[in-house]
């Protein structure tokens, strides 16, 4: 465009200028016309388990839901702001229990069935069915009792919940509306694409929804793409190979290993959107009834011990060596990428093996012939388990093993397949320390309620407590319930800031790093702007175009 503008200025005659302008317009039109249509090709890392948007629990199904589902409101993945979609406007009541939507009119599902408020009521009733047991539905379940839907008109609906639901409006970003009347059930969609073909184990083909309601600023119907092909490919090496060969247009989540290798030859293809919402953490088993020796339980239940371990871990090296610099040392439970909720007063975790040793010595530990022993003479030896197949976690474990060796702690690294690991973590509690990650799909801390509440199953270090076993867990319980019961954003932030401070003091999770959101986009794709929120590269799929190769 700049080159063409220079041409314009240098043109001698008005006639020449006119011709140049006409050529510019034609080139732009032609270019865009050429870029419209086409098929976007990318990979899913796993088989999608369902096409029913209400039952989505895995990443692959979630990505298909994002592309096919029509939602009332959408969190703009770039600005993180909530925007109207099928709803023109909405209002949340002061008590956080009721939300009213004013819907767009004249919209149809992909099979031609008209979209009305009845469909929203139907979807909500299905979602809140107690027999459904889905992550999407459970996010709305803040209390016992039934949900009331009131259809005021074909374009107006109000939904009342039995108890306040924190961040109520944003939760509707995950609720794809189903048709009450269509015979195609969940296959009748309101999103930009619809499922056209599914070959189990091989691929999912999405085609343009001919009845999609959205148009661009010029009045052209969206999406621009004809179709999206999602190949099921678990192996990152092969995904990378196919991308390099031009068989794929996007790699939605790129491993740090491949980022640098691709950047060395084709820097224009890779994107580092900065720290993501995801974190990697290490935690110790604090379950009283676990079968590990009592002396180890006493180490792990000591906040001083946990803080010392945290201080002995070189997070900078984890970021630099394991993630090739595409990660940041974690400051606490939330990533700084979560602009509103992150507690900006948190200080970086320091790395000081000497200070760590001093803290341990103050607790009665002592060094003897290069090995650390507790006050009863037990050598400090423990195992760290993590899931096999995650190269990054295995490498982090080996680096931590080396770091802790410097303060005389001997660590055994054991990689297990996920079901075995899951059993130890959730049923037998037969483990000592674990490295795992938390993938955050939403910004609101309410999504992690079941992690912070001491009575929850997902309170990983010591789940299902009948009453909080420590004062700080009781305080976290109180704060989390307080922030969930108010819609005042300022009050919620204060409460959750305090939760973050307590977690950093007590270190039940030793937060290690926040990975960067890395992706790769082919130069044939226009309009891509990778972000940190999922789906990183195709969050604006309806506006992407693919140039013919």
């Amino acid at each position, binding site marked *: 465009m700049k080159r063409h503008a220079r041409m314009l200025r240098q043109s001698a005659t008005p006639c020449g200028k006119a011709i140049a302008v006409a050529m510019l317009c034609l080139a732009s039109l032609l270019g865009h016309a050429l870029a419209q249509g086409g098929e976007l090709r990318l990979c899913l890392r796993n088989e999608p388990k369902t096409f029913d948007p209400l039952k989505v629990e895995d990443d692959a199904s979630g990505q298909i839901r994002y592309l096919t589902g029509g939602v009332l409101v959408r969190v703009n993945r770039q600005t993180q702001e909530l925007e109207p979609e099928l709803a023109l406007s909405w209002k949340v009541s002061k008590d956080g229990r009721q939300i009213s939507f004013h819907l767009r009119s004249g919209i149809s599902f992909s099979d031609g069935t008209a979209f009305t408020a009845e469909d929203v009521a139907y979807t909500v009733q299905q979602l809140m069915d107690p027999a459904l047991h889905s992550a999407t539905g459970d996010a709305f379940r803040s209390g016992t009792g039934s949900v009331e839907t009131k259809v005021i008109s074909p374009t107006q609906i109000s939904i009342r919940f039995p108890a306040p639901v924190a961040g109520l409006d944003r939760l509707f970003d995950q609720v794809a509306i189903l048709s009450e009347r269509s015979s195609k059930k969940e296959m009748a969609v309101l999103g930009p694409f619809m499922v056209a073909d599914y070959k189990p184990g091989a691929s999912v083909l999405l085609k343009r929804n001919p009845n999609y309601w959205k148009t661009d600023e010029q009045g052209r119907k969206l999406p621009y793409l004809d179709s999206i092909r999602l190949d099921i490919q678990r192996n990152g090496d*092969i995904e990378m190979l196919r991308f390099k060969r031009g068989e794929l247009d996007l790699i939605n989540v790129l491993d740090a290993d491949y980022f640098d290798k691709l950047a060395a030859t084709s820097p224009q293809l890779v994107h580092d959107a900065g720290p993501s919402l995801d974190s990697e953490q290490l935690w110790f088993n604090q379950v009283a009834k676990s079968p590990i020796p009592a002396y180890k339980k006493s180490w792990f239940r000591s906040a001083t011990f946990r803080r010392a371990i945290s201080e002995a871990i070189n997070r900078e090296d984890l970021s630099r060596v394991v993630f090739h610099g595409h990660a940041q040392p974690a400051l606490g439970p939330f990533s700084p990428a979560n602009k509103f909720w992150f507690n900006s007063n948190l200080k970086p975790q320091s790395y000081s093996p000497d200070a760590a040793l001093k803290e341990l010595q103050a607790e009665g530990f002592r060094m003897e012939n290069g090995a650390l022993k507790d006050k009863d003479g037990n050598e400090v030896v423990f195992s760290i388990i993590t899931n096999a197949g995650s190269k990054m976690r295995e490498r982090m474990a080996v680096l931590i093993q080396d770091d802790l060796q410097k303060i005389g702690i001997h660590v055994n690294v054991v990689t297990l397949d996920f079901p075995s690991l899951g059993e130890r973590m959730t049923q037998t509690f037969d483990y000592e320390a674990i490295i795992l990650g938390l993938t955050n799909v939403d910004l609101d801390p309410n999504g992690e309620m079941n992690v912070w509440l001491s009575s929850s199953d997902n309170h990983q270090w010591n789940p299902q407590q009948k009453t909080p076993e420590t004062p700080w867990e009781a305080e976290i319980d109180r704060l989390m319930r307080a922030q969930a019961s108010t819609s005042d954003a300022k009050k919620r932030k204060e409460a959750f800031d305090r939760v973050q401070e307590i977690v950093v003091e007590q270190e039940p999770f030793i937060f290690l790093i926040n990975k960067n959101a890395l992706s790769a986009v082919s130069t044939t794709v226009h309009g891509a702007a990778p972000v940190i929120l999922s789906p990183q590269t195709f969050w604006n799929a309806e506006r992407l175009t693919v140039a013919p190769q």
Partner: protein
Amino acid sequence: MRSLRWKIAGHGLALVATVLLGGFLSATLVRLAPGFDVDERELDPHLNAQSVQALRDARHQDRNVFKFYFSYMNRAAHGDLGTSLALGQPVRTLLRDRAPLTMRLLTMGLGLAWLLTLTLALSAAWLRLSVYDTMTTVVSGTFLCLPAAVLALLSVLWNVPGSLAIALIVFPHTYRYARNLLVKAYSRPHIITARAKGLGEARILFWHVLPVVTPQLLAVAGVSVSLAVGAAIPVEALCGLAGIGQLAWQAALARDLPLLVNITILVTLVTLLANSGADVISHVVRGQEA
């Protein structure tokens, strides 16, 4: 004739009993392995306590392996092979859709493997040149030392069919056995006598060597089917081929009992048929020899 019919019926019954035993043992192994009761979805922090409990209850119904297997046999007798826990689809549909690809892969892979095996083994035994023998040893040794995952990745890299990867995984095993058996056969006194009497090499090979080693080669052929089936798992999983091997890997990771039992029964049946077939043919050959 009557005793032959009884013999066949007896063998058939033994086959069926072995297959069913295989299914039961597989169910037992899966049930006793750690992680059987765990569903990855339990770790989703969005799920509340009731949903987590519902997931656990769904898994508990298959805890008793005897009950499970008895109910499975009952349903299988009516054509219902159960529903995959991981994929939520009928096992029968999954197997039916994926079997043709795996059959093609295995057939091509085994065919190629045996072509390579016989070409190299026969030529090595015939030529009896130590340089050639060393060369074939190095070639087969190289493929033996390459991880199956690497061979699968190479097939993607070079855009060659997955059946070639299977062939290159199986061929080093079959080659070594075949080569040693042929060398041994060639060293027999009657071969030395035949050569001394001026018999042509082709005649020696087809009339005096091959008949001697056929029973063992057939046993190797039967075993190679199991090797190929095992090789199909990493090849299909890595090359993104939607076959039974890929399904088996997914099922193993997810502790998908209904799927694993059916796949084991299928694999046991294929293995038994291959090896029994080899036994029958070698019996016939030995009978003819006698």
